[in-house]
């Protein structure tokens, strides 16, 4: 059994890599077709044509597209993503800092989404039909549709502009270096509160709605009624029988959500000017920084594949029957 799982997982990883490679090629072609040249930023009219050509040469842009594509393929398979035009550094070292921030930020937001929505569902389950349950459903519907930029700006207006409790943007304050370690951590925390709320609100609402729906569906099934008739406590039924069944369809949604978060939370990063992958990618697109765009999109695709795989493995862990589906 374990061998079969291993084979299917490796098969899946290979196909995913092929898909990611195709995607990167697609972006490669798209980016070369687009109007505007990355060299323009570094060339002024006073520059002699020879020097201007040298700029293009240093970017490997003087050769025909097909040769460039071969270089690109070679680079991808050796793991070397080239040198960013804008930062004048290898792409991986540019991406590293941004990715670490995004990893931390996304994981934290994801944890918050899972934990908060779980507890909200628990509350609304025990008080089901009551005022709390109904208002939670309404609020989560509203949060679900609220665009993150509207929510973020409203939060900034209320908590930063009017009440002056929290900072409006950035990740640390100006005098950050002078603080003691505890104060530095506190400073980071204070700066991350509003972004985390902005990023997590929609996710909390999604998880809450899905979990609430699937719990409502399972609650009336005959095995639950049977358990209740046998005298199990409500708490026991909820924790051991309802939740594992209800959580199964949620795992794949959570996998996709986490993958998207790891690709970068573009809007939240723009509102609060945070140094994350989303803004890095978009800045690279606007600057026509080809290697950086490809690098960022590769990482985003990779994260998506990994989290989906993880979600499937967790699903198998919960329900062994799903191995068959995965093997097919």
């Amino acid at each position: 059994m374990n061998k079969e799982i291993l084979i299917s997982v490796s098969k899946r990883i290979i196909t995913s890599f092929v898909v990611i490679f195709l995607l990167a090629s697609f972006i490669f072609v798209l980016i070369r077709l687009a109007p505007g040249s990355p060299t323009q930023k570094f060339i002024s009219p006073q520059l002699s044509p020879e020097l201007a050509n040298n700029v293009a040469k240093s970017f490997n842009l003087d050769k025909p597209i097909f040769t460039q594509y071969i270089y690109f393929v070679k680079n991808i398979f050796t793991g070397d993503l080239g040198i960013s035009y804008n930062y004048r550094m290898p792409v991986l070292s540019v991406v590293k800092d941004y990715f670490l921030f995004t990893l931390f930020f996304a994981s934290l937001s994801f944890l918050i989404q899972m934990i908060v929505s779980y507890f909200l569902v628990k509350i609304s389950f025990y008080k089901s039909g009551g005022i709390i349950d109904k208002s939670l459903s309404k609020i989560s519907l509203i949060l679900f549709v609220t665009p993150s930029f509207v929510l973020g700006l409203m939060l900034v207006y209320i908590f930063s502009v009017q009440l002056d409790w929290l900072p409006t943007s950035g990740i640390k304050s100006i005098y950050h270096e002078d603080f003691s370690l505890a104060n530095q951590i506190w400073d980071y925390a204070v700066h991350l509160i509003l972004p985390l709320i902005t990023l997590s609100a929609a996710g909390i609402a999604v998880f809450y709605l899905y979990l609430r729906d699937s719990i409502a569906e399972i609650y009336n099934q005959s095995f639950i009624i049977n358990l209740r008739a046998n005298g199990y406590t409500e708490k026991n039924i909820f924790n051991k029988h309802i939740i594992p069944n209800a959580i199964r369809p949620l795992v794949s949604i959570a996998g996709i959500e986490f993958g998207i978060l790891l690709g970068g939370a573009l809007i939240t990063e723009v509102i609060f000017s945070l140094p994350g992958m989303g803004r890095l990618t978009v800045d690279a697109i606007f600057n026509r920084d080809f290697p950086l765009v490809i690098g960022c999109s590769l990482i985003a695709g990779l994260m998506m594949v990994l989290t989906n795989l993880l979600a499937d493995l967790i699903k198998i862990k919960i329900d062994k029957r799903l191995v068959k589906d995965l093997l097919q």
Partner: protein
Amino acid sequence: MNPKIKIWQFLLLLYATLIVFRLEYLVSLAELYFEFVRLLIKQEPNISRQMDFRFIDALISFVFIILLPIVLISVKKIRRLILNPLNLSETVIILLVVCFMFAPIITRQNPNFQKNISVTKLLPPLSSVKYIELKNPVSMNETEIEKFVRQKNSIIPESFNDAVIFIDSLKVSLSKSPESIVKNTNPPLVKYYQNGIVKNIPLEKLIEKNGYPTIKEKYFLFGSDEFGRDIFTRIVYGSRISLLVGFGSVLLSLIIGIGFSFIAAQKGNFADLIISRFTDLFLSFPAIFLVVLILALFGSNLISVIIVLGLSGWMSLFKLVKTEIASIKKKEYFISAELIGLKNKNLLIREILPVIIAPVIVNLIFQFSNVILAESALSYLGLGTGTSYPSWGAMIEAGQEYITKSWWMIFIPGFILIVTLLSINSIGRKINRFYNPKITV
């Protein structure tokens, strides 16, 4: 519980309100178009040049407002639909559609109108500004076409109007200006204040009454933005961008998604494999980056936003329809229909379409709200439909800069965006519940 209002009653109320408040305007619009047709028949030179976008826009709204009751009454399906009781989300959708169709009639201002920014900028909601008007110089021997242009400009507002001066306050004085001493006359001067700056204008140039200029007031229901543009007008016009992008890209997704899924279902394995891989390719990447990539590289305008959002949205529909068709093909009624010898076209229309139409409609409604959300997010990022036409997302983006001074620039468009999305979603959920009834706790 009070009896519920029916949809047709609400529509009638809206219609009556529009007619009562804008009767004068509608009559003058009718006169304008009559004049236009008359000049066109007379083959006046340069008359066709007057047919600009806003002229045709107002014409279409005018035609719609006449046709609306006829359509509502004559088409049977719509007649049955509007007999249903009204709820909140339908109210919002109806209001949006009314804004979409009748924007030039609901608000008589140009969404880009700006004048005397120092007085009109960043006004809070429910405030008003005084203004004085210059006299219209009516020359005696103006041609018919000049008369027509004057009439048109007074009815269909331009984004700039010379004749209007917004003021904080004014003072009429009989001071002696140098010219008046030379000419030995003493025309009364009007002093007006604009945000601390004093300016003079002779009274005779203004529309006046008993030696005092007539002061009118302009109301800003939702306040004004950083250029003194009326936010209410911009929101009414902004609904058009949202709905247009929504309809356009949902239609595109529908065509692509259904087309591909039929191809995948019919032509056997190979096409299916390729399209499925392609779908995986796009689903394996956060869509927003691809959308931003394409729009940033190739430029963003209304058409490109519609196309890109339409292209990024068909995958879920494709997967849905494909699985539905696969399950229908195993059903007995389909197999028997096939054995009877129905052609592919008949199979499609009689056996497949009626079954898939319900989940497809639900999917499209959610897709619609997603597209509106995406459009506003793109506008917020500066990759929207351009600056010539207002859009809700772009309005919020403009408000971000003035967040310390003016909350209404963010909260009002934001609130309207949320209410819109909420209504669309709740209608989608309702239809979904109707087709997939579930027993809940």
